């Protein structure tokens, strides 16, 4: 065995087998528990990543101001943005760097899941090289690949869809909204590309991996929710109201009907969009206006 296999892959594989044995040979439960253990071990890194993203989110209004102020001078804008990042202690590449640091652990975990599954004869023969000389490990192999009626050694459509959905939710929650159209477009691309790519891969490989991905996403979603709430999944907040200004609030459809009967009693707080709508003439207003025109025309004719 090489260093990678000796230090990372072998211990992970044996732990996976032992967990499976402890839970009555249930490999699905073993994958779930190992995923949680590994995620807990990487918690400091993950928390750092989420905190960094949160800081970035908090900087967005300031970044938007800079965009407005120096939008035409790209060089100056970049300088000011870097200055702002520096002052706030945010490293824009930090999130990606932390993700890359975690990559080897994920790879090892994937490989351990595949190894322990030993779905094909070569895989089983290969697995023998990785086993510790513990009786429990030797007698537990081959592991039972069935979990909730799914063969974890075969691709599974349901799990693949769950992987895609889970990853999309996770991506959406962790994406920092941006006023910069280019960044927003890149974020949008990543939000869709990553889940699609992983869902596609989940449909092509042993579903034990898909289970791992799904549990991993679920863990990250819970963590993200605890730290930042629903994040990008939340609907856009209404813009702040300015003192001294009057706004018209449009209630849903039923309230609009009331508008026709009694305009005076309307509540006066709204968001930008509703305000725009409120400025358009209502159906009844148009009717009255048209009628008035007709009356004028009639008078003129007289």
């Amino acid at each position, binding site marked *: 065995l090489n260093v990678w296999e000796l230090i990372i892959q072998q211990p992970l594989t044996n732990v996976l087998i032992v967990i499976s044995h402890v839970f009555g040979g249930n490999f699905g439960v073993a994958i779930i528990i190992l995923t949680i253990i590994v995620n807990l071990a990487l918690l400091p890194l993950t928390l750092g990543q989420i905190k960094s993203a949160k800081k970035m989110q908090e900087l967005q209004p300031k970044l938007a101001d800079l965009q407005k102020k120096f939008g035409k001078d790209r*060089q100056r804008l970049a300088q000011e943005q870097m200055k702002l990042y520096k002052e706030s202690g945010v490293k824009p*590449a930090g999130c990606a760097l932390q993700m890359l640091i975690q990559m080897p652990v994920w790879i090892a975990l994937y490989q351990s899941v595949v190894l322990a599954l030993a*779905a094909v004869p070569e895989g089983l023969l290969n697995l023998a090289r990785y086993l510790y*000389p513990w009786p429990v490990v*030797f*007698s537990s192999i081959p592991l039972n690949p069935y979990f909730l009626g799914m063969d974890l050694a075969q691709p599974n459509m349901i799990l693949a869809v769950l992987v895609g959905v889970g990853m999309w939710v996770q991506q959406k929650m962790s994406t920092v909204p941006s006023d910069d159209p*280019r960044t927003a477009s890149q974020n949008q691309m990543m939000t869709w590309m990553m889940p699609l790519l992983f869902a596609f*891969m989940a449909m092509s490989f042993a579903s034990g991996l898909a289970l791992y991905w799904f549990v991993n996403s679920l863990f990250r979603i819970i963590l993200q929710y605890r730290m930042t709430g629903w994040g990008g999944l939340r609907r856009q907040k209404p813009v702040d109201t300015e003192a001294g200004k009057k706004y018209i609030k449009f209630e849903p459809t039923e309230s609009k009907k009331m508008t026709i009967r009694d305009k005076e009693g309307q509540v006066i707080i709204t968001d930008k969009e509703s305000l725009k709508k409120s400025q358009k003439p209502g159906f009844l207003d148009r009717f009255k206006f048209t009628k008035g025109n007709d009356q004028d025309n009639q008078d003129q004719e007289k």
Partner: protein
Amino acid sequence: MVKLRKLKIVGLILLVIAAILCLGIFGFSCVSGMTPIGWSGGTVANNILYVGSMEGRLVSINLADQSRQWAETLKLPAQGGIFGSCSSMLSCGGGTSRVPIYGTPVVSDDLVYLAGYNGRIYAYNTTNLASRWIYPRDGYLSSFVGSLIIDQGKLYVGCSDGWIYCLDAITGDFISGYQTGDKIWGTPTIADNTLLIGSFDKTIYAFNTSDLTLKWTYTTEGSIIAKPLVYNGVVYIGSFDKSMYAINLADGTLKWKYDGATNWYWTQPLVVNNMLYAANLDGYMYVLDIETGSPIKVFDNTEILSVSAIASQPVAFENYVFFANHDGIIYKIDTTTQTITQLAALTGTITSPLIVYEGNIYFQTQDIVIQSVNIENGAVASISLISG
């Protein structure tokens, strides 16, 4: 500066995608042995060697002139949708686009039989390799990993669905079957009208060959993939619990158990000069007393220069035992003096069973070649199995 930033972002995205792709292609497929390739051994009958090639077809080689014949390529079960083909593309070397063959062909009368990883059993004419029958005629069973066996006009084979199938060897018609508790990847043995086979459910089963009714079972502490050996009314079989068992053929009672190895027993043991030679995946060859199971000699790392797993079926010839290991080294043990010598060293792993025929050892290697090694001087020659 803005351009630089743009480049950084694009580079980062590309890096993430590339990492994921690497993860997918190398992490899952090649590194961890997800792709079935096959390790069929050879059978010689009438100076013709039959082998299931890693191209997924039966090949016959006339050993006199090395002329070769290929049977029709085994067919893969239809894979659903685009994802079946995608997973083929993502695997190493297109391994899943051909049918792996693990079992060694068996020749009986004018037919040669083969069980494929695609879940089908094939019978071919020995002369022209034309197909005689296929079982099942429609559809596919689960994968066959072990070899089949022919006895008194009946074909017996264990399947990954846990069943032992008994077919009419002439027509391919189903006669009887028995379902064990888990997958069967081992090869059966027949002795005294008793069929013996190990299963992943950790049990060795003994059946009456006449009607496949159960005679007895013996449960070990690990799964069984090795082929049982019957010698003087005793069944010798190794298990994944790192133990070698001697079980009385008549009633299935334990005679002795040896648990000195440190890994799985993958192959059938051999008896030479009243000594049991048991190869283990720990890379050692254990020589045991067949009466008591006590170790007489262990060929370990003090005598084997390159210790690696022995997954290839060893073979005995006269007073010698030959075995090959994962590192591609072939060793020769003189059973009279209990000395070991290195016969030949090949590049690449050897997992295919060894056979001896007219002074040469034959086995298949992963470059789709039949290797022959002279048992006297270790001279190596090769015959390609690649068609076309």
